[in-house]
């Protein structure tokens, strides 16, 4: 008996496209495309409980810029009320101190890689204070303006030195630029001002 070789019947694959489409649609629905973006910050480490509160002791007055947002979302910068749009320029002036103003932060000579010796306002601090009644969006706007001030200063010096934006530099160069404009925003310990009801 001559046996014929049996052929395996071909699997009908015409519906696999439908199955794949179903999977695709399932994933499209259950996943979210939005990449999470935000303003990164570092919190200060917790204060030991037995330590006395003695904030702002060693900070000279000229090195400190207090930005206060009150419960009506008004911004007090230094000791005058300003509009949120002016804050960036104010902050830039404070951080950079281009004219060596004696009321602005003092400059310290720092040896920076790539740049050599530079006069840097190393000890400046922007102290961001807020009320318990301040809205979050006002707070974020102020944070954003301050970040923008640093960003613009860093971009400016990067363009001048390397011909590139700060974000396009490699890590070492970024670190060097960061040495010239260190971001020093202190988010102060919470305080209660005026009549604010506790939440």
């Amino acid at each position, binding site marked *: 008996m001559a046996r014929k070789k049996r052929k395996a019947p071909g699997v009908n*694959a*015409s519906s*696999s*496209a439908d*199955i*794949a*489409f179903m*999977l*695709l649609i399932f*994933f*499209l629905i*259950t*996943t*979210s*495309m939005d*990449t*999470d*973006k*935000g*303003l*990164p*910050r*570092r*919190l*200060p*480490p*917790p204060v030991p409980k037995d330590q006395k509160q003695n904030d702002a002791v060693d900070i000279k007055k000229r090195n400190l810029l207090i930005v206060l*947002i009150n419960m009506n979302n008004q911004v007090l910068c230094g000791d005058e009320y300003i509009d949120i749009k002016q804050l960036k320029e104010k902050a830039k002036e404070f951080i950079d101190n281009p004219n060596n103003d004696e009321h602005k932060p003092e400059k310290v000579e720092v040896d920076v890689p790539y740049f050599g010796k530079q006069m840097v306002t190393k000890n400046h601090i922007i102290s961001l204070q*807020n*009320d*318990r*009644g*301040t*809205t*979050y*969006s006002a*707070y*974020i*706007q102020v*944070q*954003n303006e301050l*970040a*923008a001030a640093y*960003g613009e200063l860093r971009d400016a010096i990067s363009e001048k030195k390397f011909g590139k934006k700060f974000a396009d530099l490699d890590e070492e160069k970024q670190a060097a630029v960061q040495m010239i404009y260190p971001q020093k925003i202190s*988010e102060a310990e*919470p305080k209660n001002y005026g009549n*604010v009801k*506790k*939440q």
Partner: protein
Amino acid sequence: MGKFNKSGGREMPELNTSSLPDLVFAFLFFIMMVTTMREVTLKVVFHAPQATELQKLEKKSLVTFIYVGQPTPDLIKKMGPATRIQLNDAFAETNEIQDYIAQEKSSMKEEDQPFMTVSLKADKDTKMGIITDIKQALREAYALKISYSAAMKVQ
């Protein structure tokens, strides 16, 4: 002379669909790569504030989320309109944050723990009081890297 066979007319050649599943699978894998599974169901309404100086959060696995906002419309009847904090799938109080962070931290690999980031997803109308409380709790829990989640501002 010329042999032009006109009988039968022209037929549309059949489109070969045998590679269609492969195409769809390739697309599927692409989608799976670029997206993340939505792990929690939101119980609070939140509209992110807008900002321009945003940075992307790297490494999704190192990020812990804290949601702050008003409860969703159907929960608002039960719970009232007060701003709430949501950790994972449940509402929580500020004093529970420390435990939550510690728990999240312990579920990470040891070498990753210092890089843990907490993304604060708060509604733009939230009062800073509650945010400050959260920040203090995070400080106590030694989760010092935070990110204020915000949407890109369109000019």
